[in-house]
């Protein structure tokens, strides 16, 4: 058995079984050597990589390390002095937070709708046009590969500021990412209902809607919820780099610098609370959807 694992099932190249102890030790030695070599390469890559990255950085690691908490401390102390203002500031930024959440929700919805059709068209056994499966798969790959920021910045140039460029950018990426996961789920769906529906003359869309979707809906919903979590973060980041939502407010407050740190803290806390609450809720429902209780 051990020999099969080490040398494969082919007869001929396995060692003399009469000396199995020696062969086993030999295998262990070889495995250790490969492991050791891989470890050395990995350590060398990490060490040289960090040194290179540090060299290209404006500040060095060891001089920066003690300062990591300087900025948070400065921000927090100013916010503490003005703590009476915080509730009001929370209130001021709630609309921006809602915009960020709306961006994420609309993008997740649109992306998921696109992903449903793309994934069904790209799944073996279910596809409407089996010959076009590679085309739809590559489309999803390309959608997944383009970072959101690229599409968002280009669209800001055409459409002007506002939330729509971010929505389109996140929705396109979501379509590709969810499409891949959806198609993996659909691949494992039971084909019997589909065949049953086909035998009574159902069209392709009826077969999918009545035969496949009910089977995969819990898993799909669970993935979509997870994606919504990710998209809330993405929409905050896009706001910081581009425009719209709470990320943009954060950037403005940061650019102002000292004197508006209470605002920075308010936005930090709002964003943090939103992310934690959404994570919790989606965790709960995903558990329910997948485990069924």
């Amino acid at each position, binding site marked *: 058995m051990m020999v099969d694992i080490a040398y494969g099932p082919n007869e001929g190249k396995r060692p003399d079984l009469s000396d199995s102890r020696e062969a086993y030790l030999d295998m262990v030695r070889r495995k250790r050597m490969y492991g050791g070599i891989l470890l050395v390469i990995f350590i060398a890559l990490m060490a040289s990589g960090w040194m290179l990255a540090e060299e290209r*950085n404006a500040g060095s690691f060891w001089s920066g390390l003690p300062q990591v908490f300087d*900025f948070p401390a400065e921000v927090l102390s100013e916010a503490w002095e003005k703590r009476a203002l915080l509730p009001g500031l929370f209130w001021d930024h709630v609309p921006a937070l809602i915009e960020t959440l709306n961006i994420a929700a609309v993008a997740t919805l649109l992306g998921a709708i696109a992903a449903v059709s793309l994934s069904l068209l790209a799944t073996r056994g279910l596809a409407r046009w089996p010959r076009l499966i590679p085309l739809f798969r590559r489309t999803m790959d390309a959608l*997944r590969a383009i970072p959101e*920021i690229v599409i968002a910045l280009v669209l800001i*140039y055409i459409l*002007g500021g506002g939330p729509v460029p971010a929505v389109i950018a996140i929705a396109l990426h979501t379509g590709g990412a969810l499409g891949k996961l959806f198609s993996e789920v659909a691949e494992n769906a039971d084909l019997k209902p589909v065949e049953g529906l086909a035998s009574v003359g159902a069209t392709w869309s009826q077969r999918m809607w009545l035969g496949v979707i009910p089977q995969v809906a819990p898993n799909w919903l669970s993935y979509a919820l997870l994606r919504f979590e990710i998209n809330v973060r993405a929409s905050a980041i896009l706001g910081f780099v581009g425009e719209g939502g709470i990320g943009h407010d954060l950037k403005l407050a*940061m650019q102002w610098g000292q004197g508006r740190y209470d605002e920075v803290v308010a936005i930090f806390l709002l964003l943090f609370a939103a992310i934690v609450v959404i994570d919790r809720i989606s965790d709960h429902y995903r558990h329910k959807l997948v485990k069924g209780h």
Partner: protein
Amino acid sequence: MTATFATPQPALADRITRRFAAKRRMAFAIPAAILAYLIYAAISFDIAGLVQRARMDNAAILLGDFWSHKTHVTRDNRSGDVTVAIEGESKGTVPPPAMLPDWVTMAGGVTTIDLGTGHVVTYDDAGARFVVPDYGTIDIRPVGGKPVLTAPEPIPDWISVAENKVSVTTDAGRFSYSRSKVETFKYEPGWELFFFTLESPFYGKGLGELLTLATVGERVDPDRMNISYMVSEVWTNRMWRHADVAWAIFETILMAFLGTMAAALMALPLGFLAARNFMPLGPLRFAVRRFFDFIRGVDGLIWTIILSRAFGPGPMTGAIAIAITDAGTFGKTFSEALENIDEKQVEGIRSTGANAALRARFGVIPQITPVLLSQVLYYLESNTRSATVIGAIVGGGIGLLLTQAILTQKDWEEVAYYMVLIVLMVMLMDSLSGWLRRKLIKGE
């Protein structure tokens, strides 16, 4: 007895009919709710206003720039100097008369620009003329410094006349006349100067000619081989900066690699502390778990901001930001994987008298390696994408080049180039991580 058996039947049928009715209602209610939400979103995002504000002319410029380049022929109206520059950049200025394109002729103060299909622009002492076929001659003369237009009436909408500027847009090219200068733009397909810039001895040579030069041709520079001269000319191209771009791509991948690996190395020991079967001390376990939740919840964006204050801009800051954010995620998944291991192997190792470290090394690590590796490789791929965005914030890698090129709003061909490179980079990392996953986990 019979009665008790018979009674459930209608009740069951009733219940099922009711459940069906509820399901049918849901089948309408859910799409209706989604639609209602989308309508609300469309109103709150001001889609109607957006359609009006959308700059479709910008879209046309952008798409045009993606696959073509423009050459500016500019005359300074004060000094009378005419320059021909690719993309209007000083780096792309053509030294006259040796390298003038064949559609520009200069003779004794008169410059003639042939834009093709009968469109001809002439600059002379009197002003400038633009002959447009099927329309006529647009004649512009400066009167008291201001351009005065003479053209067949009525003036079509592709000629825009303002007090100090006249501009004409045709399919063959654009033309504009202002107090200080007169400019003509000719669009041609392709990314100009992508390989060789104008000052390079290899500029303007065809593929066959270049191949001959590279293999059997006489040395252009007697000190080195032509092929190495060519490579260095492409590498140091001042318009497209290939060396900088290659470095930026490498920097982005470096950030993703260092960040992911450092996160995994930090999360592994902490994962043991957060797993129920390895950490009997409840409060410590709780503390470690909440720590993971905290660093995940604070989010990459905020870590990036805090860290760039301490470490300054650069790739190391980006790598640390990725490492911290992902350490939280890895810690959570690793501790879950640790809780799901098979205790029998650990027991077997324990029976040989192994201590805790040896039990972990030989009883636990081999079991969680597949989960661990597949997580790490998956994140390596997705972090390549994040590193592009984080790079834009911390100022490193291809993300910075891309955002700079987009914000200047003129080098769209460079934006297209970077976009293609980013997509290729992500796809490459995707297939690399898939290959490694198959190799290391399935042992294929």
